[in-house]
């Protein structure tokens, strides 16, 4: 089998090969590190490659599996972490100049759980500065494996690009307005924002406490589910019967929608319908205010986090990040509290709708990967980009993006699946079912085939 054939296999397939002694963790980790060396110059997906640690972890995994110590399906699997997740002894930059040389003393809870499961950390992935609005010029944009002249998306673009191109089998991202699901959509992979609070954020650098989520990015919903079980330390599985299941379609329309995205989304909905699902169109009252509410929560929370550095090191921020942090100081308390109140109002609207349908479907993003990340601000392309993802940061509902087809120039299109709180397993099971029904949506990026 070719190297790339191995590097694009699913986690259960690799786990089975390990246990059948057809492949060893050390062999696969070496292949992965070689692949990173080959493709990272084009993709810029990794800020730090942790070769030494990866080889040591792979050696340990190999010895343990050989001696009958089996830590589960992630044992010996190469994975990556967004570079705002703390790793003891390994620098964690947050994509910033300010933390360029920051080496945490402790692992994040997520890091510890992955290590305990025997996963092999191959590196720390690129992101927008502090997961906020823009790429810091010291690190540069992460490029899209389907077209390296375009962005992989933000802010977890490094994680999504690395997974899509076979530079790791899964990765952790964070999501405050869509930062897992948007890059997952642009890179044609599965990106899952769990229910708020399901995954620990201890040791993950915050952007906005009440909106932040950490979650998996993988090449399939099933691989994402396996990652989620480890990082949340909770079982996550459910049986699914699509026949008779009722889905609600939301935010299918809008002037920002590219026709190719609508076409791919409609095709995925038609596939579900043919599988016996029932589709209805939904309307959530006042949803158009979600863009504003997201910013009015996020801006002041982020500004409080960055207040000290803004006073002492403002020149170290990328200009747009600095501007966003400054803006938060001008948001009145009443504006922030009103947005928080709106969140509860919006959540009630969603929960009411979810009494009638099992899941909500929408396009993840209205467009395919642009050339550059739109800046995240009110009334511009940034708000448009997060229009279909941000509501689930406000409401905390679990939301999955999976690939559902391709638009012009062969660029991926994501469909978003949203379920009730703590029905994370259901969202992932629907994602898996859709992936099985649409094998044509599992294309390998041209760059990864080279």
């Amino acid at each position, binding site marked *: 089998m070719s190297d790339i054939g191995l590097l694009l296999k699913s986690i259960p397939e690799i786990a089975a090969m390990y246990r059948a002694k057809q492949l060893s963790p050390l062999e696969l980790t070496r292949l992965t590190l070689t692949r990173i060396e080959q493709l990272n110059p084009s993709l810029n997906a990794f800020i730090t490659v942790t070769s030494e640690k990866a080889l040591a972890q792979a050696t340990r995994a190999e010895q343990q599996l050989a001696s009958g110590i089996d830590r589960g399906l992630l044992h010996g699997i190469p994975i990556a972490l967004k570079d705002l997740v703390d790793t003891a002894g390994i620098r964690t930059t947050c994509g910033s100049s300010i933390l360029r040389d920051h080496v945490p003393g402790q692992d994040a809870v997520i890091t510890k759980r992955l290590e305990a499961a025997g996963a092999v950390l191959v590196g720390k992935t690129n992101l927008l500065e502090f997961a906020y609005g823009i790429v810091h010029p010291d690190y540069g944009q992460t490029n899209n494996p389907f077209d390296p002249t375009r962005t992989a998306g933000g802010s977890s673009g490094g994680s999504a690009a690395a997974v899509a191109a076979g530079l790791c089998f899964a990765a952790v991202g964070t999501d405050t307005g869509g930062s897992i699901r948007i890059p997952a959509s642009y890179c044609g992979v599965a990106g899952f924002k769990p229910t*708020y609070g399901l995954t620990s954020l201890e040791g993950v650098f915050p952007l906005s406490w009440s909106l932040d989520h950490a979650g998996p990015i993988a090449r399939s919903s099933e691989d994402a589910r396996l990652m989620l079980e480890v990082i949340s330390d909770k079982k996550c599985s459910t049986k699914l019967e699509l026949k008779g299941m009722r889905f609600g379609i939301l935010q299918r329309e809008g002037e920002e929608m590219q026709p190719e995205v609508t076409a791919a989304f409609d095709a995925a909905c038609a596939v579900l319908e043919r599988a016996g699902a029932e589709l209805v169109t939904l309307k959530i009252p*006042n949803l*158009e*205010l979600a*863009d*504003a*509410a997201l*910013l*009015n929560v996020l*801006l002041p929370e982020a*500004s409080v986090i960055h*207040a000290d550095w*803004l*006073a002492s090191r403002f020149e170290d921020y990328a200009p747009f990040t600095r*501007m966003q942090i*400054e*803006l938060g*100081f*001008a*948001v*009145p308390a009443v*504006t922030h*509290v*009103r*947005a*928080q*109140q*709106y*969140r*509860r*109002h919006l*959540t009630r609207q969603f*929960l009411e709708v979810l009494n009638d349908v099992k899941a909500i479907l929408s396009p993840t993003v209205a467009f395919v990967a642009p050339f550059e990340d739109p800046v995240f*601000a*009110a*009334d511009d392309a940034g708000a448009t980009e997060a229009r279909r993802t941000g509501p689930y940061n406000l*409401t*905390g509902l679990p939301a999955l993006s999976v690939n559902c087809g391709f638009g012009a120039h062969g660029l991926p299109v994501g469909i978003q699946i949203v379920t*009730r*709180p*703590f029905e994370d397993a259901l969202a992932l099971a629907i994602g898996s079912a859709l992936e099985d029904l649409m094998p044509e949506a599992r294309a390998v990026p041209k760059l990864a085939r080279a």
Partner: protein
Amino acid sequence: MQSLSAELVLEVMRLAGLEINLERARDLIPALQPVFDGDAGIAKLKLGTPSAVSDLWNEASRE
């Protein structure tokens, strides 16, 4: 809605603990105006008196 002035932005930011100059305050106005416009939209909703700090959903739904 009354449009923002650089002086007002400067003063509000100063009260929140951030010192910037008038020119910088002026630069921020185009990005700030939509924040207030959005808030004005939310303020028109009849949100009543539910808490703004409660859990997002009923804890009973947790497994």
